[in-house]
């Protein structure tokens, strides 16, 4: 008999349409720490889970884009607040997943949260930066606005479990897309945690959907799904990217190929990758 308390362990589930289901397939897979120790059984998402996530993302998109830019910025900023209050937990998971020492893990979390704040600020700036009025030669008012591509699939980086996830997922979100994301296959738990935080930080259901599982199994479905408008292939190898890009051509998807660059310039490229320029002409007369 022992009075040592056993901790209550968590089941790592998917995030689809604001809910946390297990995979409809009932499958899960073992995730190990960087030292090879058992960390968790994580839901192994299936084609049908992806399908449900696309449906949810599609339904949520007009409302997310219909919110004011100011409001979208607030929602994303709220995620940073939630993450800040759970920094220790995130750091522990990043440390376990990436094999980082405590200080390094904390610093990674800090950078990730700062990145969320950086993105939050873009929500009501991007329109002015990418859009504008066009001086056409005629009696018309003509302006161009960046508008979201729609539903974007993100294959998040495999190595950078949290920072890379934040970078790839928030870029399409802040410009008005809804997202389904496949986190790092081997290091998914920080992303799952962030997903849980998003659900308590005013993210509307369906805005961010997270499907953990085997990247190689899930990506062909993403590339061929016709109701996905764009795909970020950051988390696949170059060879896989070639194959997936060819598949994505079936529905003329916007494809962002893997790019080792990081930092503001790379993120700006991401912000531009999944916006469409919509140009409106209106006559000007008495």
């Amino acid at each position, binding site marked *: 008999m022992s009075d040592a308390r056993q901790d209550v362990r968590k089941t790592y589930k998917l995030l689809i349409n604001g809910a946390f289901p297990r995979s409809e397939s009932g499958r899960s897979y073992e995730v190990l720490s960087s030292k090879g120790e058992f960390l968790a059984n994580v839901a192994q998402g299936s084609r049908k889970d992806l399908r449900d996530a696309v449906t949810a993302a599609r339904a949520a998109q*007009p409302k997310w884009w219909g919110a004011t830019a100011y409001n979208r910025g607030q929602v994303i900023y709220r995620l940073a607040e939630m993450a800040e209050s759970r920094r220790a937990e995130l750091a522990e998971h990043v440390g376990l997943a990436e094999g980082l020492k405590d200080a390094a893990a904390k610093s990674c979390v800090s950078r990730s949260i700062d990145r969320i704040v950086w993105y939050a600020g873009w929500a009501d700036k991007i329109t002015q*930066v*990418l859009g*504008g009025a*066009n*001086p*056409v*030669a*005629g009696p*018309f008012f*003509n302006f*161009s606005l960046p508008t979201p*591509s*729609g539903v974007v699939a993100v294959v998040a980086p495999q190595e950078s479990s949290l920072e890379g996830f934040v970078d790839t997922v928030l870029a399409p979100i802040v410009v008005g897309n809804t997202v389904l994301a496949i986190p790092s296959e081997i290091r998914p738990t920080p992303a799952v945690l962030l997903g849980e935080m998003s659900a308590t930080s005013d993210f509307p259901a369906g805005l961010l959907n997270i499907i953990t599982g085997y990247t190689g199994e899930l990506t062909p479905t993403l590339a061929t799904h016709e109701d996905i*408008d764009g795909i970020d292939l950051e988390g696949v190898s170059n060879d896989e990217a*070639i*194959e997936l*890009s*060819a598949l*994505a*051509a*079936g*529905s*003329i998807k*916007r494809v962002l*190929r893997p790019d080792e660059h990081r930092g503001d*310039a790379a993120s700006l*490229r991401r912000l*531009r990758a999944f916006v*469409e*320029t*919509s*140009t*409106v*002409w*209106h*006559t000007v007369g008495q």
Partner: protein
Amino acid sequence: MTDKSLESSTLGSLQYDPAPELAAIARLRPSYGLFIDGRFTDPSTHEQFASLNPATEETLAMVSSANAADVDRAVAAARKAYDTVWSKTTGAERAKYLFRIARLILERSRELAVVETLDNGKPIRESRDIDIPLAAAHFFYYAGWADKLDHAGFGVSPQPIGVAGQIIPWNFPLLMAAWKLAPALAAGNTCVLKPAETTPLTALVLAEILQQAELPDGVVNILTGDGVAGAALVDHPGVNKIAFTGSTEVGRLIQQRTAASNKRLTLELGGKGANIVFDDAPIDEMIEGIIDGIFFNQGHVCCAGSRLLVQESVADEVLRRLVRRVEQLRVGDPMDKNTDVGAINSAAQLARIKELTDYGMSEGATRYTSSCVLPDKGYWFAPTVFADVTQSHRIAREEIFGPVLSVLTFRTPEEAVAKANNTNYGLACGVWSEKGSRTLWVAQRLRAGVIWANTYNRFDPSSPFGGMRESGFGREGGRHGLEAYLNV
């Protein structure tokens, strides 16, 4: 539908005598080589094909058929020009070449308009007043960007991509060449341009203009030919970027084929644009806009307003006026200055239009066809309106790319938006209303790259053009158009 819908007053009966433009102005040569490294050269196979006048089926000139070896030569010339000359030419100097080209196009505008109309079948009024002036304006606009790229919003000193392979369609031959070449050259790229098989001639006149402008050899190479040349260009490892305008079907193939090489790609593909008419639309201008939207350039326009979505409460009135106006269109000799609708560009395109319109009839839509008398020779299709069309009809979903309008109805703004967006395409839409707030409400919700409010089919070099979804990606025109040719 009662016969009342066909009521019309006697329009257009001041019979206009023929007013033909002079074909001799074209100064066409009997045959043309491939424009590689600043010179017209024979194709490696010595194969040539005829470019026809679609209005008469007569041969206008023989042009050369490029094959893979010719593409190789052209890409090598473009690469050499990029490495040795163009990448070392300052923006300010590049600008002067582009300004010069713009001026030369204007100087030879009447000749270019005649060549365009002979080769394409479009009315001379359109090539004279729209295609050629806009092509010149495009060069003029991008000329000014060449030395201001630092200020284009892509960071300091953005770099060109390299050699651009550009494949253009037959509907606006010279204008599409200008849309492709001007931003590419301004950004510092060199080009291999392939005009469409059925409309190569203005690009060849443009080649002469490039010689007159003394553009350095190899900076622009122009290869006439068919899909073989296009495919070779798409697959060529020496090409860094492909820009394509054409069908969604071919665009899809190009996206697949460029996946392995990671070439930069922009696609400007098909469309099924909706022209949305509310009950408070300015009715006379709206009717003109619908006509312009679908019968401009025989409907051979990717952004054509080929679906008319009209509010049910005014549908009968709009249809009545529309049919009356269609009957008034002057169809015939493209060289006649009073022609409104010219010839269909090719036998193949005519066959496709007929196939789809036959489908429309068998699906139960009501057809109104102009009673205009069509010439015996050449490829012709009388302006046609289908009423009683529903969303599921093929003629409401597929791009016909001809002078055929499908009329559907809606009851509320939400329904109008839902129907307009219920397509895989996303290129262009029109909105007609005197109520500004609703127009903007609709515009915000339309998934289309271009939205025309109380107008249609307007183009300007400063205005970004391009599609969403299966209408492609990337923009041509404006500051946005530079992104397609910069390594950013």
